[in-house]
């Protein structure tokens, strides 16, 4: 027991210095008359405003910042005073590259209003933790106001801990889950953990690499042990080493199964909770959100009219689900026929389609709205941009 306490104490004390500096942060406040940081760039005009640094860029313009953080940088958090409406990129320079050689990463666009973007840059192969120049690029030009930039870095022990935590982050069931499963992905910071599986393909390192390394390590250690036993002690332990090796494999297999099985169970229980046992009107099903609920609630109408139609966002393959559920009583409007011939229309997540006070179903255009149906009413509203419309008879 005392030997155990000594070893445990040693282990705890040895990691204490590492854990003392878990996270580093440098914050640049860009609001007010004197935004922090040394800024430069090309084809961009920078103006200090109370809300932040306003960047008005031409197409291809960029504004660059000299990085003064005194710690390694693993993530960048940018707070926009207004959400960028044109594509923009994060630019950075690697110390080993020529001065004008920059890498870039697309920044996700926001829908409107203040927006905070977190970029777990350490998970990209080309990132340099000690970058000296960071910037924003505007391939199509733009007008953006940035109120704050944070540079965040983590210590080695924090990275290890984040790596362990990321192993347990689950992916959701999506359309590709019947063809492949990403499996556990290892990232090394807490911000990246929040972003895991949110983009396709996801960033992160497959845990399989670490498992293979462990397996090779175990194989090497057992080989050395068996060899040493034979040469030094004269004991044949080759057979035992092989058995131990496969027991290690078995343990890793079971641990991996526990992780993947846990992911499956968590997803299935979520399905049961958010859909099967949820109240109608509040059901959510995976990434389809309230679509299935909307269809279920619309079916009594869709299957009782002569013809129905479905309007969904372009390129989203969910219409066949409605046809499948409505079959055989529901008769869809034939392709090519005008929508005005449909007696009921299920509109799902179409912010360009609305019903006016006169009961007309309208589609917004660059000019006058297009009238899809002359008179009718909304029978059910599923969310602000989804509803069931019934033409007046």
């Amino acid at each position: 027991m005392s030997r155990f306490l000594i070893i445990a104490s040693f282990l705890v004390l040895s990691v204490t210095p590492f854990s003392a500096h878990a996270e580093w942060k440098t914050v640049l406040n860009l609001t007010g008359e004197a935004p922090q940081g040394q800024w430069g760039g090309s084809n961009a005009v920078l103006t200090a405003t109370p809300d932040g640094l306003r960047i008005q860029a031409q197409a291809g313009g960029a504004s660059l910042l000299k990085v003064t953080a005194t710690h390694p940088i693993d993530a960048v958090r940018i707070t926009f005073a207004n959400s960028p409406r044109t594509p923009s990129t994060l630019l950075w320079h690697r110390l080993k590259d020529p001065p004008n050689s920059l890498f870039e990463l697309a920044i996700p666009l926001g829908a409107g209003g203040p927006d905070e973007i977190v970029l777990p840059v350490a998970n990209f192969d080309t990132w340099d933790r000690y970058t000296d120049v960071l910037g924003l690029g505007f391939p199509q030009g733009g007008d953006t106001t940035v109120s704050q930039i944070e540079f965040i870095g983590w210590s080695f022990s924090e990275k290890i801990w984040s790596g362990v935590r990321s192993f347990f982050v689950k992916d959701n069931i999506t359309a590709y889950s019947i063809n492949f499963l990403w499996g556990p992905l290892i990232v090394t910071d807490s911000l990246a953990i929040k972003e895991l599986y949110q983009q396709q393909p996801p960033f992160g390192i497959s845990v399989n690499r670490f498992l293979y390394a462990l397996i090779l390590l175990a194989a090497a250690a057992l080989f050395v042990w068996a060899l040493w036993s034979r040469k030094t002690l004269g004991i044949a332990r080759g057979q035992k080493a092989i058995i131990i090796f496969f027991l290690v494999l078995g343990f890793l297999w079971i641990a991996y199964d526990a992780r993947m099985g846990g992911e499956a169970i968590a997803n299935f229980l979520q399905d049961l909770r958010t859909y099967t046992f949820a109240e109608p009107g509040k059901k959510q099903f995976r990434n389809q959100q309230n679509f299935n609920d909307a269809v279920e609630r619309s079916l009594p109408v869709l299957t009782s009219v002569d013809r129905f139609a479905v309007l969904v966002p372009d390129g989203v393959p969910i219409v066949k689900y409605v046809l499948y559920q409505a079959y055989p009583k529901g008769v869809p409007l034939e392709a090519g026929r005008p929508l005005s011939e449909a007696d009921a229309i299920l509109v799902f997540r179409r912010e360009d389609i609305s019903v006016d006070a006169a009961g007309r179903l309208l589609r917004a255009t660059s000019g006058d709205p297009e009238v899809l149906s002359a008179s009718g009413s909304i029978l059910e509203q599923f969310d602000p941009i989804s509803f069931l419309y019934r033409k007046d008879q």
Partner: protein
Amino acid sequence: MPILSLLLGIALPSFLGWIFLRHIEGKSIRFFLAERLALSWMMGLAILLSVSFTLNILLSVPFSFVGFFGTWLVLVAIFFVAAVFRKIHVFVPSAKPVGDSQRPRRWIKIALILLLVWTGVKVCIGAAMMAGTPAYFDDTIKNWNSRGKVYFYTQNYEVKLPIDEGVNGYPPYVPLAKTWISTINGDWNEGASNLLHIVWFLSGAVLVWALLRRLTESSWALFGAYAYISLPLVFMHGVSAYADISLSVFAFIAIGYLSLGLKDRDNAYLALSAVAAGLLPFIKNEGLLLYVSTFIAIAVVASLASVWKKHMTIHSLVKSQVLPFALSFIVLSLPFILFKIMNGLAFGNAKGVSGLELGWHDGVVFAMTVNMFFEGNWLLFFPVLLLLLAWKWKHVVRLPLWPIALFCAMLMVGQMLIFIFTPLAIEALRQTGFSRGIVQLMPLLTVLGVVLLSRVFHKEA
């Protein structure tokens, strides 16, 4: 009630399959109880649905309760009368597995119990999800479930489909099974028809256990069943309404019992294998395009080798393999093949396979490598299997493993070459067709891996 409909929908074809299996066994008893139930279900349902399909297209016998039940009744009567004629007892006790050479250690028993409980929890929650949630995956909606629903309401095998015309060339086994369950239920029931997939999945696991039980000790057999279900992408297919698991089980019966039949020089296993192989085109398109031809190649080589070594005569080869295969193929699969030809329906999944230009496609080898080794699909299966194949290669080239290994190798390498050198590369780059191909072979690959693993411990312990 949907659950009762499901149970009845399983019991009736299983009874038919039970009598069929007794014909296969003849005077002696071979199958373990769980194995017999799994085989009865798989073979009985396939025979019932295939004959129902043929009667529908030839004589317009509807897919109604009267149509299905009448067909079932006639088939049961035919098989039963034939059994009486051949003096075969239908209701017999099942075979018992041979006892282990030594009792498994206590910690192994505890570990296996825990693993099987864990597996049971996963399967139960998966089943609850299948019964209680709507169709989600693309092929479930536009193909397997929608066709089952169409056949249920029209009571006819429709070529013109209201939801997606592009799937009318797919074999009818899976959709008709759903039609069958809903017919017993009296109304279309998506939950009950979805649960069929769990039954196919568990049947595959039971058959993996049964074959392993004959080749290894009880612990290894149970571990093999656990290992099969634990594979994440296999499990996902097991709890989803797709057709790859059902194809995998028939491919397993075809090759697994061929291997067993050759090893034990047992005509009953060979006959079962041949009948299952003849059914493959009725299950999924790959059954005809890839699996049957590969099976025939291996069976011919293996059987001729047996004849040459005087382990079997030409007469018994014809009786145990050629005739059963021919009968199964002609009666159970050929009607659908001819129906497709007469109606101009496609033979290839997704895209046609003829007239493709050959050329190297970048990224395919990388995509396949990532799929097999750097994603969560198969846990550590492929590295372990490759290690075992290299280490215990002497076992791989002998019976009973070589037909299994060769079958899987031919199909995997064949499909890899198709993906690398033809425009079907998209099926590998998107990890669609490539993954499904592996799912279809997994029961066989699991047996291969577990038997080799048991040889490591058997020698080293």
